[in-house]
């Protein structure tokens, strides 16, 4: 089984540390639109999260016309931002809302588990994030 990022929304404080870390690790900048995890506030109710479920047979993978989606050693789908042309085919193909477009650069963004390093997990101060499979 592939590893995936799992969030416990009951614990999440909506601080967005994971989103900040994600954009910093993948793009070298802080930008909530460039994060592969999105926390959506819905006060007073619990937040919602958008996140790749790392499915066994990813619908996003075969539809990419430029081979910008790659499979990592760990078996997760990763975006090559240089090759992505922002056509959005993968976004349309995904039924889990797990991949989306960064509107400022028109490249897609998703959780690739940092090639198994799950860098956001260690920074979550309330352990709302964990590694699952």
């Amino acid at each position, binding site marked *: 089984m592939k590893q995936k990022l799992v969030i416990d929304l009951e614990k999440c404080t909506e601080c*967005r540390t994971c989103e900040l870390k994600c954009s910093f690790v993948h793009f070298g900048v802080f930008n909530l*639109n460039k994060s592969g995890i999105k926390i959506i506030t819905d006060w007073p109710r619990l937040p919602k999260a958008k996140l790749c479920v790392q499915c066994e047979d990813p619908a996003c993978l075969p539809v990419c016309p430029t081979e910008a989606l790659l499979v990592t050693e760990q078996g997760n789908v990763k975006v090559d931002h240089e090759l992505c042309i922002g056509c959005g085919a993968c976004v349309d193909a995904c039924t889990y809302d797990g991949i989306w477009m960064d509107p400022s650069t028109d490249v897609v963004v998703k959780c690739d588990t940092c090639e198994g390093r799950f860098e956001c997990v260690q920074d979550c101060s309330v352990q709302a994030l964990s590694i699952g499979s």
Partner: protein
Amino acid sequence: MLDCYNKKLLRVNLTHRTFTEETLDNEFIKRWIGGMGFGTRLLTEELDPGIDPFGPENKIFICVGPLTGTSAPLFAQTCIMTKSPLTGGILNTYAGGHLGSAIKSAGYEVIVIEGKANGLVYLSITPDGQKIVDCPELKGKPVKETETAVKAAVGRDDLHTMAIGLAGENRVRYGCVISETRAFGRGGAGAVFGSKNLKAIGVAGLGDIRVLSNEEFQSAVNAAYDAIKEEMSHPWSVVTSFSQSGTIDGVAMINANDALATKYHHMTHFDKASNIDGAAFMEKYETRSIACQGCQVHCGVLRQPKKTRWGEAWTRGPEYETAYSLGSLCFNDDSDMLLRANDLAEEYGMDTLSLGVNVAFAMECADRKILPRDILGDGLTLKFGNADATIKLIHMIANREGLGDTLAEGVRLASQKIGQGTQSFALQVKGMEFAAWMPERMRGITTTFATANRGACHKRAPIGLELAGILQKDQVEGRAAIVAEIQNRVNALFTLIACRFAEMAMPTAVFLNLLKTSSGIEMDEAEFVKRGEAIWNLERLFNMNAGIDGSEDKLPDICFERPEVFPEDAKHLTHEDFATLMRDYYEYRGWDSQGRPTPERLQELGIT
């Protein structure tokens, strides 16, 4: 160098409906760092101290800092500066949440609002454009409904907002600006919004936030995380306690210290405090923690919807300060009332501190037979402990009805209007109502209430040291210097817009390393604190030119009377001790005997 700065200021003129971008020059950035530094410098340069705070010539400076929008923990706050309608002096007021990050992503370090719109408007600053939008349909609307309506109208789910409620529109002098679940609480910035017909601002941005060295910045952030973790590993730490139950967890500890202002400062202890402390709220209300952006402390306690006899409420809080002002100060231990009052204050957009003091002032006037007990109508009795009277007064103040119209002016002006000696017990300094602390009890609070540039404010005082017993509460010797140093230090931290709790968890070196690795700006701790001192002096000069001089560094007479219930072994405040504190304070600051900064000191601080 200066990688984490946008270097851009957006100037919005509501009268002419124009937007202008200006470039912030490197020397300005390096000198004033950001946040309160930018705001103070710009405000004191651009505003004539003598202007009417409600006139179109007043301006609103909305500032973020060098670390806003990065992963540096506890730097989520946004700073608003304006001339306060409550004090007539310079005001800096802060709210956390997620707004600051949106402003930074939108590409601005400062947004300046000028002029006055000819009808109610909201402002939208997004990648789709900058717009001033007429919104007569939002007139009188509560804050939550307003923010929801603006988000829907702008049509972006990444929009973050700030808004005023009816109180700001009605120019209640302590009308505040609410940003989602957070408040720019003190000093009446919401009333200034109202005076400009500005109902709300929505901001969204797509921009990247960069730092000088990614690797070194990540190390600096990790050091900050480690410091916070270490602090929160101690069960005795207030940061740990706030993390678990919010700041209201302070009620029990402060009451145990005989320092909880109760029944209009006549008592230092509230026998029924356990009904309104952090544990009581956690037990009675379904609660979950929410945090400001990037914050590991998550002191926000979000209460799920609850029916009270004054209507359903859901709210973040109440904070400790509210449990004092609308709780112990009003001799009220009804937690449902506090929950609803907090919610109402948020919806009307009122600073709960000033609001509670005004309610308590009315109760005190009734106790002294200055106001009739039946003045509220509806068969209600104006007296301490009456929760119904408190809720009624909150509605009356926001709507400016009857006695509420008088109290909407704040206790300084209300006491002038009511007369009959009420000024001697109006709990205010420079027009700002007392925060949740007792100057009768703690000399750090005595000094800071009397001297703070924004009035009776607690943000820069050695509270922790006095409560922990590291400093003796009633000791006068040496206390003024400690207060002045903290005022300088906190002003410096507010250039980075650090949360007030950041300092409890992280040493100053951590802050300076975050600044250095993000911006390249390097300085030692002494220089950093000196920057804060320069800001303090700039504020002081502005206030003096606005007519608030050393003669306003004073406390109301009631503070010099020994409270009815007061620890036997403690010394209450005397005029002699107060005079010593002020003399020592001016001396430490290098000011003259009238509290005026000397030209020599100003020169040392680089203020010309």
